[in-house]
């Protein structure tokens, strides 16, 4: 059963790669969200797909490579990149807190949503240090990432510069957005990877500082 869950995920993924325009993660997730309950695989799904989740930690480490390769470009546009990333991280935290408050969400839920721009394993661990639900944080991180990935072509058209679009996607839409940026434009991909890594770091540092100010 567990192996069936893994095979199903991989099979749907490779079919989804052939669907034009829609990011494969969206297609795969929608198809699996229907198929998994229909086949009564919910219990086996977690164990079956554990190998994929285990690969996330080395994948995050692997982001060091684009970061290293683009170090010269990044250093040359260091000031705009850093200002963009810090402003975007802070804006995400504050926006989540304010909008969440306006809609009457509890502080615990907001603490889980605020770090969601960080890549989901990072968001989960930040949320648990803030005393919020790590599962909800990871869920919100991936959901936000998918939204960002869907907005990517529009953002590229509006922003013009692929490097700036990459920064935005790396900050706002974590790994999912970074993968999408890399598929759209190589330069956007590299700056997205850098932005994603730095954003995760900055969010981890800023969240415990900024959130108490907004939430008290």
């Amino acid at each position, binding site marked *: 059963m567990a192996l069936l869950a893994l095979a199903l995920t991989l099979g749907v993924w490779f079919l989804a790669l052939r669907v034009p325009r829609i990011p494969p993660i969206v297609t795969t997730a929608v198809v699996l969200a229907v198929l998994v309950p229909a086949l009564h695989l919910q219990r086996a799904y977690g164990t079956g*797909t554990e190998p994929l989740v285990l690969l996330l930690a080395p994948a995050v480490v692997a982001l060091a490579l684009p970061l290293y390769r683009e170090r010269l470009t990044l250093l040359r546009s260091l000031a705009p990149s850093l200002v963009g990333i810090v402003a975007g991280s802070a804006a995400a935290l504050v926006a989540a807190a304010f909008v969440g408050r306006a809609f009457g969400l509890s502080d615990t839920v907001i603490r889980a949503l605020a770090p969601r721009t960080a890549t989901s394993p990072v968001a989960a661990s930040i949320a648990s240090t803030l005393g919020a639900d790590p599962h909800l944080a990871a869920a919100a991180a991936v959901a936000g990432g998918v939204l960002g990935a869907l907005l990517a072509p529009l953002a590229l058209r509006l922003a013009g510069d692929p490097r700036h679009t990459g920064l935005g996607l790396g900050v706002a839409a974590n790994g999912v957005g970074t993968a999408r940026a890399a598929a759209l434009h190589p330069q956007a991909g590299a700056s997205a990877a850098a932005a994603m890594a730095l954003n995760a770091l900055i969010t981890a540092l800023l969240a415990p500082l900024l959130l108490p100010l907004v939430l008290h």
Partner: protein
Amino acid sequence: MAVFGIPYPKKFRLRALRTVAISAASLGVLAALALAGDALAAVGHLPLPGPLLGTVLLVAWLCARPADALRLPAADWLIRLMPLLFVPLLVEAVAPLRALGHALPAVAVTVCVATVVSLAVTVFAARLTSWLSSPSR
């Protein structure tokens, strides 16, 4: 030997084996760095997740030994596969999102607004700074 009906000489078989071995070894290196990052975070009581510290460690390592950047083929396919690695998380995200009950629409709006705001603010701040710092202004 033939693969899909195409003759496959022994020379290439050895090369394929070598590629697989190097991929596996470099995956091991990346995993070890993630664990090293975990250990560092635990020992130093740092608020950062282990794998991210592993990323920092690897960048530092590559700056010291640039030639090693070519010895990590696993890194490229891991990054390309990254969206697939998120799929199980997304499928499992359905449960905690459903558990929110009537708070779900508010959470959805919050996530959407925060995503769009941070995307726009990042791009705008980066553009503004590069415009302000450009010598030709």
